[in-house]
């Protein structure tokens, strides 16, 4: 068995080394793939806080991913067409500034997570799964019928958005931005897991009765975790849209929710770097198998089935042992 912290270091180092090599070897597509993996990892890290720490099986995280994407799409669309976003009491302009877009993406997905969480946490278990899935579909159909922002066709933007002091059109620069954000979020995730809040949330997940008997409110703890989770996945959505310079209802689809969850399962639930490992493996499979066969989802399905039935704990569990490290 290899210690989980070594594995984490190795994975993150690999995520730096591959794009660094790609810069030297002039392989921009590899950098794009790595950026894609990093953004997926970020989205899944968000879900992992709800799923791994809070025990909430959310099949609706595409909602936040999509909201983040549309926050980018809408703001940038107005900026590039020089039309105001709102022209009522206040004048709200679009923007091409990444930090502003991120903030909007995080706030709006946080509000959505709060509302969805309030409704779906009224029940638990299998209801929660079905309700989150349904809300995902609601946003999907809403985005399709919202003709102002492209409806089914989605929104394209001409140029990647700006980050102060960096040329974001250079692939490695955009990779660096995404990777830094991932590192910060992983750090926050590690801190939260060990914090008093993490301790309380852990109890709310495993022994809700106990949590109540020591004066904690399990539902409220879970709601806060769900909001944090949604905010992170929303941020990932904004980055993903910026990577593709395109956003469409697909980001809201149930397949997207499922894929975000697959990243975690392949990697390992409740493991700090489980989502990272899972996302990297997914992007590699997508690239390698996708080249071999148009029907690569069959192989993905079989692999997922095998992992669920035989490799409890995902890849991280396989390499670093079953137990989540405690110190």
């Amino acid at each position, binding site marked *: 068995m290899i210690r989980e912290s070594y594995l984490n270091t190795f994975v993150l180092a690999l995520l730096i080394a591959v794009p660094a090599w790609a810069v030297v070897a002039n392989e921009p597509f590899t950098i794009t793939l790595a950026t894609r993996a990093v953004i997926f990892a970020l989205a899944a890290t968000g879900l992992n806080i709800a799923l791994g720490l809070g025990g909430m099986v959310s099949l609706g995280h595409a909602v936040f991913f999509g909201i983040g994407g549309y926050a980018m799409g809408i703001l940038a669309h107005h900026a590039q067409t020089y039309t105001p976003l709102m022209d009522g009491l206040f004048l709200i302009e679009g923007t091409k500034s990444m930090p502003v877009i991120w903030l909007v993406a995080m706030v709006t997905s946080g509000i959505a997570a709060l509302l969805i969480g309030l409704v779906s946490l009224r029940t638990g278990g299998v209801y929660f799964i079905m309700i989150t899935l349904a809300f995902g579909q609601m946003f999907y159909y809403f985005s399709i019928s919202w003709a102002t922002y492209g409806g089914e066709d989605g929104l394209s933007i001409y140029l990647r958005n700006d980050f102060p002091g960096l040329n974001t059109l250079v692939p490695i620069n955009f990779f660096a931005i995404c990777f830094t954000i991932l590192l910060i979020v992983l750090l*926050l995730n590690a*801190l*939260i897991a*060990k*914090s*008093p*809040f*993490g*301790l*309380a949330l*852990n*109890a709310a997940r*495993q*022994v809700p*009765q*106990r*949590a*109540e*008997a*020591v*004066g*904690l*409110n399990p539902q409220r*703890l879970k709601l*806060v975790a769900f909001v944090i989770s949604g905010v992170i996945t929303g941020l990932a959505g904004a980055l993903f849209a910026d990577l593709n310079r395109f956003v469409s209802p697909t980001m809201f689809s149930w397949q997207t929710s499922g894929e975000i969850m697959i990243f975690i399962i392949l990697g390992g639930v409740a493991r700090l770097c489980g989502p990272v490992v899972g996302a990297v493996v997914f992007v590699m499979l997508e690239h390698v198998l996708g080249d071999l066969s148009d029907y690569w989802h069959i192989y993905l399905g079989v692999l997922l089935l095998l992992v669920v039935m035989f490799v409890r704990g995902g890849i991280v569990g396989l390499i670093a042992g079953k*137990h*989540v490290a*405690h*110190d």
Partner: protein
Amino acid sequence: MTDPVLATYNLNKSFGALKATDDVSIDVRPREIHAIIGPNGAGKSTLIGQICGGLASDSGRVTLAGQDLTGTGTAVRAKAGIGRTFQISQLAMDDTVLQNVMLGALNISSSPWRFFRPALADRDLRDKAEAALARVGIADLDHMQVAELSHGQRRLLETAVALTRAPKVFVMDEPMAGLGADGSKALTTLLDGLRQEAPILLVEHDMDAVFALADRISVLVYGKIIATGTTAQIRASQAVRDAYLGDEA
């Protein structure tokens, strides 16, 4: 007579046609251990649920140190000062012993709404947890995972979690369940001293422990309290003999 710490007034709870508790009025006074005994299905678990807040009563009131808690939820009652232990250990299996005990003190010495500082770095929280572990005699197990503990050790841990909270009253649901003779004896000694800090409402099947510890005993049969009195009075009561001890004799 001193004011009771914990008191119930005419608590009722029915499940369909079954009256699980029927007009139950009991109180727990300062520095006493008040034991509730009764055959299986007498309504003890229902009563605990009604006192601790997991079950809504059909009618009746619950007060703690004069404060009316009727209708409030479990978390509110816990914060008000009811320290509960469970018949079936409610412990986070994936976590360490220390983490489980620290949970008990979370709402007491700190807030659960802190996100970025490790709980283990909170000196006060940790001291409280370690003191509680030391009192039940499992301080050396603090970094073990709960899943690796024996049943008896889990029972002790269950008690330790309640200890960290320094509650106004303990409500203990069969703390001795599944403990060996040595374990029971150790826990009996612990509870004996504990009553000086906060009185205990003790639901227990281990009659040796009950008669060794209790200042007063109430006997619950078919949801009704049929007798309340000192150990001597209960031993002497014909009604109790008929309804309960008779079965065992």
